[in-house]
């Protein structure tokens, strides 16, 4: 991780990510905040690329910057015009100090711990040409049970979301409807 390109890329992508995340907090319009959130996700995908995690970076762009942001925009469009602001509640007096303290704590621990980390050529020796093949092997070999549980979780989330938003028909006789439900 010594090459100048990686260093520059790390600092630029970190600045994009942190700046966009701050803008999500500060912007007053919720739709603008979602656009900046997408930018933060893209910066994070770039940081994943500097860690040579190509498959995860692509997944991040597809799932976060693509799917989840579109879901968020849909949810904003389904709620009324009056509630599209990004206002803070009174809990901002707790939330901002807690967030600041946790950032400070993690930063302090990151710099004051002697990590058993690899540097230089030791990292390069371990690199794969592509991580996708190895991730697939691990998923279907050592983590097979978790893989299946994740698929069941996705199925239940899908069914649950559909059941939650399904319109319940209002019958004229409320008693019948209640007994049926």
């Amino acid at each position, binding site marked *: 991780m010594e090459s100048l390109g990686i260093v520059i890329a790390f600092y630029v992508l970190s600045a994009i990510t942190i700046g966009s995340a701050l803008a999500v907090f500060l912007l007053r319009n919720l739709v603008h905040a979602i656009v900046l959130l997408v930018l933060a996700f893209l910066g994070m995908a770039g*940081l994943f690329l500097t860690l040579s995690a190509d498959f995860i970076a692509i997944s991040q762009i597809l799932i976060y910057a693509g799917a989840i942001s579109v879901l968020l925009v849909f949810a904003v469009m389904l*709620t009324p015009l009056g509630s599209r602001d990004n206002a803070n509640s009174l809990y901002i007096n707790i939330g901002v100090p807690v967030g600041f303290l946790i950032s*400070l704590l993690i930063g302090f621990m990151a710099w004051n711990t002697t990590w058993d980390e690899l540097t230089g050529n030791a990292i390069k020796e*371990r690199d794969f040409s592509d991580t996708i093949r190895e991730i697939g092997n691990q*998923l279907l070999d050592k983590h097979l049970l978790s893989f299946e549980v994740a698929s069941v979780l996705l199925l239940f*989330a899908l069914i649950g*979301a559909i059941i939650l938003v399904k319109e319940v028909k209002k019958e004229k006789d409320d008693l019948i409807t209640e007994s049926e439900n």
Partner: protein
Amino acid sequence: MIITLAHYLTVSGVVFGIGIAIALSKRNVIAVLMGVELMLNASNLVLLSFSRFGGIYNSEIAPVTGHVFVVFVLTVAAAEAAVALAMAVLMYRNRETVDLDRISSMRW
């Protein structure tokens, strides 16, 4: 100049803190969800950077275990976003608001 593990952990900590600040102090349900997504993303960055730099791994353990964990985190995040946004739509349909300060029927 050299980028070490601590650099990545610092970025992740800052993003996590911003996510906590958003999730705790926003009024809108959707904005709170955005904070939660930022926090999940920061945890993904930690997993990936430890997977890249971690020296405790020997050659028997494949160094992509962190990547596999991130795949599961992505799955859980997608499921969570779908269910939470369905709940936001349902909340608006029943209570005519998505303002968390006015959803107080479960307050003791």
